[in-house]
């Protein structure tokens, strides 16, 4: 081995604890990037598998208004296709589908149920379209068609319910229509990546009966010849940066007349994918944050190593070693650390991914009703990506140190490093500010917002050492008359900034992110709370089973005696302007809150038009005064938008339309809000329960509020975990820096101890320095955290989800940031301080002589 390289590698070994800390920094960064990527990939795969199982090779679907169409439409369409209707020229298969979410139980009263997607198909028409549907010639298909009430259920779901998949059994299906028995005649496997949600296949007639939809279909699936696959580079880019390159949904919706429309299934899936990808990109950004914090550890460790070896570099230069050779050697050291860190990171990342997957899957399920896979995909792309990012980022972090090392003159002094650093720093800050501002351009969407957050954090990192120096000098000026030991502490802290400044930068980044995210989450929580309070202001809510057009008569008769006012909603799914929506027809009676208690962003809920949710308004780019084309049975109504209201659900957009505007022709799920109960609430509940049809559920608003808040908390659990990891890495960085400083100062403390300074002084100096750094870091992190929150709230949330939030500045959040930062500082300083406390003056003096 090259002697020069050998000498450098021996330095790594000699300073092995510092090397280990740097390797740890890389490892954690790589691990978090990999874990987030793997967890995201797994949940994306779950979505793909779920779509594949339901849609098979179908490319398009014909739907009616409210996503249901009369069964009679199917034979007519099939006949047109067979007779060569040019609209269906490239159609290879056409099959009717009835589908809905249901729950499966072993017994009618059994508490344990399992969520399932019921798929009702015509096994003959469906032949070959879906792999899970048995072929028409099979015995299972024959029984599904000939024996009413028979179903096939996936093996994993049966096992979860403790049912033998190889034996026939009677099971119970709960749906909006009530609880019905079915006969499970066979099971099938969904493959290794079992879904959280199961699949149940039935003949279409059985499904219609189970769901109370006799005579109706959910849709008619078409298999058209597939379009050319996307270009190779686009596929690669999507795999490397999921979420960044989501193609905008192509609106190839086609009106087939008679209230029938044909939509692309890929387009429908893209809507959900786009929403989920926003969340996943946010996670990926947090993963990169952990890597960024880790890289500051590498940068700090290498800078420290270079500074310690300035004399050694000087000797080498004097012997004739070129500056470029020293530059290369420092980069080679970094590469060695990078490789070690990446290898460790890949191992830790696989383990971390399993933990994160559950959190990511849970959040996606809460947000988008998606389900998760149980296993991580053995995909090499995320591993290669994380490894490459780790190595490249390590080398990038090593560049300043390598440059510093190569500038050491043969006499061991650095050449103009300070000035070069200051001008480079100013140029970098200017560049980051310009890049951050450019990233906020609306065309870059929410990804631009995240880039801007990155620019703010990097600017903070570059600014931190200068900020720390200013704070310490200010303190020195103020404390002119303080005891010399205090001034010594301040001067030593300032002098140590070359080493500790980098770690402090990492701490500032972690704290600013934590504070920014905290402000965003608190603003979100407060906005959601107010929105929920308004939306669930009615003390009682009644959800009817099955589908309805009108308020059941028995309940309607009872209402005038039991409540002062009520709101009745019938809600169905549809698509408007290429966007999936839920439309609610609303009838209001008696005393109810103004605008139904909705938090209006603009306009009002009026009897002449529609009110739409804020996210939908942003997606459609339509607001009050614009016209919306609302599909109704047999055509579409052009209605003015009279109001836009806040909505924090992440599902389809909401449209509210007053009873008088659309005729009650479409059925849907029905719900009743009850305001101003007359007399005892329990009495009202009892009376309604007696009058309501079977399957109706009456719920108190407290119960609904608790449910909604539980969902909110689960949603943000994963972000808290990633934040905590970044914070821990930053604290570790500070620990590394203070340990290194402690080592450097042992000689100074040795002299002081010899002169008669007691053993507590070095300890207090170390702890004091850590507290000073931590306090200065948090002071800088506070305004930066607010800046991060501004971008998250005003740019990222609005662009990604269409949510506007009310700002909240809870003082406890700032206090918490201060305390966490101080605690991190104290913990980081504890070990080096303890080591100094235990060292004897003789041992320290031995080091003084050795150092000389």
């Amino acid at each position, binding site marked *: 081995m090259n002697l020069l390289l050998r000498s450098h590698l021996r330095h790594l070994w000699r300073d092995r604890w510092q090397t280990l800390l740097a390797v740890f920094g890389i490892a954690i960064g790589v691990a978090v990037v990999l874990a987030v990527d793997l967890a995201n990939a797994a949940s994306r795969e779950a979505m793909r598998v779920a779509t594949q199982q339901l849609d098979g090779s179908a490319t398009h679907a014909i739907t009616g208004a409210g996503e249901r169409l009369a069964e009679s439409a199917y034979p007519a369409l099939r006949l047109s296709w067979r007779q060569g209707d040019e609209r269906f020229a490239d159609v290879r298969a056409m099959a009717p589908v009835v589908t809905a979410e249901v729950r499966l139980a072993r017994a009618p009263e059994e508490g344990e149920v399992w969520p399932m997607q019921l798929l009702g198909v015509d096994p003959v028409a469906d032949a070959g379209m879906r792999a899970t549907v048995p072929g028409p010639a099979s015995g299972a298909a024959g029984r599904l068609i000939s024996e009413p009430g028979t179903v096939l259920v996936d093996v994993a779901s049966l096992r979860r319910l403790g049912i033998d998949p190889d034996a026939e059994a009677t099971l119970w299906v709960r749906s909006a229509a009530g609880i019905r028995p079915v006969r499970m005649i066979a099971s099938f496997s969904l493959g290794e990546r079992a879904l959280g949600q199961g699949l149940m296949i039935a003949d279409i007639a059985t499904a219609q009966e189970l769901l109370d939809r006799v005579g109706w279909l959910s849709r008619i699936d078409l298999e058209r010849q597939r379009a050319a696959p996307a270009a190779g580079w686009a596929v690669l880019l999507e795999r490397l940066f999921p979420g960044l390159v989501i193609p905008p949904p192509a609106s190839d919706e086609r009106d087939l007349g008679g209230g029938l429309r044909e939509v692309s299934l890929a387009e429908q899936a893209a809507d959900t994918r786009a929403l989920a990808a926003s969340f996943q990109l946010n996670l990926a950004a947090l993963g990169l944050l952990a890597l960024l914090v880790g890289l500051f550890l590498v940068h700090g460790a290498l800078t420290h190593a270079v500074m310690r070896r300035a004399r050694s570099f000087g000797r080498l230069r004097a012997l004739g070693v070129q500056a470029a050779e020293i530059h290369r050697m420092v980069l080679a050291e970094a590469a060695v650390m990078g490789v070690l860190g990446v290898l460790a990171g890949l191992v830790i990342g696989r383990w971390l991914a399993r933990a994160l997957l559950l959190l990511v899957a849970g959040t996606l399920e809460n947000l988008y009703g998606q389900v998760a896979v149980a296993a991580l995909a053995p995909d090499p792309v995320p591993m290669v990506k994380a490894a490459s990012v780790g190595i490249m980022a390590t080398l990038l972090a090593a560049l300043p140190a390598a440059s510093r090392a190569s500038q050491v003159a043969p006499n061991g002094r650095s050449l103009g490093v300070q000035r070069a650093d200051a001008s480079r720093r100013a140029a970098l800050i200017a560049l980051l500010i310009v890049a951050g501002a450019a990233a906020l351009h609306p065309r870059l969407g929410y990804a631009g917002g995240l880039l801007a957050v990155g620019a703010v954090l990097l600017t903070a990192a570059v600014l931190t050492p200068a900020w720390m120096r200013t704070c310490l000098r200010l303190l020195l000026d103020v404390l002119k008359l303080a005891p010399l030991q205090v001034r*010594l502490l301040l001067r030593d802290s300032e002098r140590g900034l070359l080493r500790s400044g980098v770690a402090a930068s990492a701490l500032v980044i972690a704290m600013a992110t934590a504070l920014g995210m905290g402000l965003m989450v608190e603003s979100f929580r407060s906005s959601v709370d107010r929105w929920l309070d308004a939306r669930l202001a009615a003390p009682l809510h009644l959800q009817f089973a099955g589908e309805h057009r009108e308020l059941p008569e028995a309940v309607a008769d009872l209402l005038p005696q039991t409540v002062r006012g009520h709101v009745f909603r019938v809600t169905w799914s549809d698509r408007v302007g290429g966007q999936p929506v839920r439309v609610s027809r609303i009838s209001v009676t008696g005393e109810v809150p103004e605008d139904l208690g909705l938090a209006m962003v603009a306009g009002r809920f009026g009897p002449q038009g529609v009110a739409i949710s804020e996210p939908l308004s942003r997606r459609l780019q339509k607001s009050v005064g614009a016209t919306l084309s609302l599909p109704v049975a047999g055509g579409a109504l052009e209605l003015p938008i009279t109001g836009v209201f806040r909505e924090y659900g992440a599902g389809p957009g909401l449209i509210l339309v007053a009873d008088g505007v659309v005729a009650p022709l479409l059925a849907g799920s029905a719900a009743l809000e009850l305001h101003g109960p007359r007399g005892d609430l329990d009495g009202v509940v009892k009376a309604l329960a007696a009058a309501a049809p079977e399957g109706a559920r009456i719920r108190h608003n407290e119960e609904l509020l608790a449910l909604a808040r539980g969902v909110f908390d689960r949603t943000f659990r994963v972000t808290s975990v990633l934040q905590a990891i970044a914070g821990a890495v930053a604290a570790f960085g500070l620990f590394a820096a203070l340990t290194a400083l402690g080592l450097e100062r042992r000689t100074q403390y040795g002299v002081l101890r*010899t002169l*008669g300074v*007691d053993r507590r002084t070095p300890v207090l100096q170390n702890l004091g320095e850590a507290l000073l750094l931590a306090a200065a870091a948090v002071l800088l992190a506070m305004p930066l955290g607010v800046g991060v929150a501004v971008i998250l709230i005003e740019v990222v949330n609005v662009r990604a989800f269409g949510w506007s939030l009310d700002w909240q500045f809870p003082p406890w959040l700032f206090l918490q940031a201060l305390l966490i930062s101080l605690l991190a500082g104290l913990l980081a300083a504890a070990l080096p301080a303890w080591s100094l406390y235990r060292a004897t003056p003789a041992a320290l003096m031995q080091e003084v002589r050795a150092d*000389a």
Partner: protein
Amino acid sequence: MLLEVQAVARAFAQGGRRIPVLEQVSLELAAGQRLTITGRSGSGKSTLLNLMAGLDLPDAGRIIWQVAGRSWNLAELDETTRTAFRRRHLGFVFQFFNLVPTLTALENVALLAELNGLDDPFGRARWRLQRLGLGDREDAFPDTLSGGEQQRVAIARALVHEPAVILADEPTGNLDRETGDAVFAQLLEVLAEEDRALVLVTHDPELAAGGDAELALGRTP
């Protein structure tokens, strides 16, 4: 007697073996006297100085100081008391100066006066620096001072709290002959004026000559 070292022994463990560095070493030092300890590298000079300063404890023997009207047997004192004794009654001059790099010359000197709770620590420090010809360098940081200047600051620091004795470990070892001689002469002059004792560790025969007593330590086995 200011200092009595009685049959002191000290050994260190190295690779599982005990290497004796000092065996049965005894000496005495009176107030205002100048004791020189000489010997080759590894003979135990620094070890003996450490023991005399209470930085380390002997395996056998006693080290007794008679200062400020009382007797201090270092082996019987706890670490805190030994530190307090060192701070108040001893002054140190090191071969490599060992000034605190983040304190100015004045502050380096004032530090010991302040630690000892003496009144007007900066006035005392200023006076000491002026006496050693460094009145115009008091605001300079150590890295801007020459070697000779740094050592004179170190001497000022060793004297500022008016200790009974100065322990000097190769005080001219890092200076050229001319500068070294000049600095050492200044040290001797001040000590003579103030009647303070000096324990000088050196392997320079010229410095060793002229002391009141000399202890020559043998080679290590």
